[in-house]
């Protein structure tokens, strides 16, 4: 049964790539609005694959996965595109479009939704100011530091006011001071109502924030859980 307002419903989900490698085994979990989850585990444990399932970048091999109440196995490509507008994603290597300016990168999610240019600009400038990049709107990503690029990626991920924010090692390419700033940014987004799932290796930050931890080991969610995901 799916609860009203449930963002992610995952029941006995497994994922096997074409090469036959089984990366996720029997995963069951639920995410609710306004929740924050750390996703931890050693390299190759399946964190990125789990996030990939959550941003609808792949269909599971077995089990039931529903995102915003829609079963991903039955989902059309167009439905997936429209649902992804409710999901923001931040990667370790930023995935910005290099020949577009910072402002154009941040505006892109609104552009694909065909929002008017003036509204796009206003919101993008506001967000860039929020992440402290108001002086870099016309710069190309190539000319920014790792921390600045990650903040651009965060601004792009949240400009569409996503209900679910996924971050895959977002602090992997920045120094500790910037990492702390970014974690506080994610915490701020969570407090504004977004469900945040943050994959990280950083034990320090996992222990610093009072949010539940999902620990993946060899493709399984193990009992090594700091705290069970709680309903808001």
């Amino acid at each position: 049964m799916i609860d009203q307002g449930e963002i992610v419903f995952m029941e006995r989900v497994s994922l096997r790539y074409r090469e036959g490698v089984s990366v996720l085994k029997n995963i069951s979990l639920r995410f609710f609005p306004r929740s924050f989850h750390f996703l931890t585990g050693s390299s190759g444990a399946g964190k990125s694959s789990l996030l990939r399932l959550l941003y609808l970048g792949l269909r599971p091999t077995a089990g039931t996965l529903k995102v915003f109440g829609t079963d991903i196995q039955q989902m059309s490509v167009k439905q997936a595109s429209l649902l992804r507008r409710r999901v923001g994603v931040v990667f370790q290597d930023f995935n910005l479009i290099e020949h577009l300016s910072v402002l154009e990168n941040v505006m892109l999610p609104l552009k694909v939704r065909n929002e008017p240019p003036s509204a796009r600009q206003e919101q993008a400038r506001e967000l860039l100011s929020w992440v402290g990049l108001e002086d870099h709107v016309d710069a190309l990503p190539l000319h920014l530091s790792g921390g600045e690029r990650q903040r651009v990626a965060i601004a792009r991920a949240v400009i569409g006011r996503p209900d679910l924010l996924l971050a895959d090692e977002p602090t992997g390419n920045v120094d500790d001071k910037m990492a702390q700033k970014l974690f506080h940014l994610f915490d701020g987004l969570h407090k504004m109502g977004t469900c945040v799932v943050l994959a990280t290796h950083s034990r320090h930050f996992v222990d610093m924030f009072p949010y539940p931890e999902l620990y993946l080991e060899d493709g399984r969610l193990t009992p090594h859980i700091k705290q069970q995901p709680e309903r808001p």
Partner: protein
Amino acid sequence: MYFLKSSLSDSPFAKSSSSHVLPWVVGALIYLATLAVLGCQGVYRTMETWHMLLSEHVTVEIPAAQKTKDEDLDKLKTLLLTLEKESWLLEAEIMPENRVQDLVTAWISDAALVKTLVLPMLVDLRVSSEQRVPLESIHKKITDVFPEAVLHNHAEWYSPVLRYASFAQFFSVALALLTVIIVIGTIVFSTHSDLIVHQHIINILQLIGATDTYVAAQLEKRMLRMAFLASFVAIVASVVTLFTFRKMSSAIIPFEHQEWGIIIFIPICMIAVVICVTRLTVLWFLYRKDINITL
């Protein structure tokens, strides 16, 4: 073109190496297709004109040396009056010298020179196409008066020319179709290459919620710009060719406004083909990709 330039400046897809070469390749193909259709149209109209002029006509050519005697001219007139009584002869006319000169001028293109030539006398016999015409009998009657006279039955040479013209028309249409097929193949190949090259950007766009039609529209804009450039190249080349050809042969092959219409119409059709093919290629590529995103 401003709308294209402005919409491309923030396009998520950077320019690819093919974007420099493609307008010239497609432009050359559009130019070839335009020439093929123009050729087909020219042959058709020439055949139509010749058909109107020649299909019911037999010409008697009396060499220049024999036409000067007034008594022979009188004999000829008498002969024509006799022939006009036959039901198969609709009309007989001794062609005035200036018309004969006009006919020759069409091929030599130098009216002054033609006026210095000693030209034969021509008699135009318009015959019924529904009755059998006794050509041998006419020939005999004429050669009795003018032994050197020659009877030109245009149907004898006109029929094979018609066959060649039909083949030329078929060849022109086939060439135009082949050109369209090559354009389609070029666009499919180029779009597919673009999709492979820009796969990472496509994944980013899909991740932020872009639909397949949005991605297709972005690539369509690039191809539209390319097709406009290609069409411009083709139109300029076609206009130059048409002007040159017109100057060289306007007296033989008539040109009308239709040619200008073809020069504009073919590139417009090709632009439509390019846009449709691009869209279908992108949509097919993304359909096969399903929801998969690899970043």
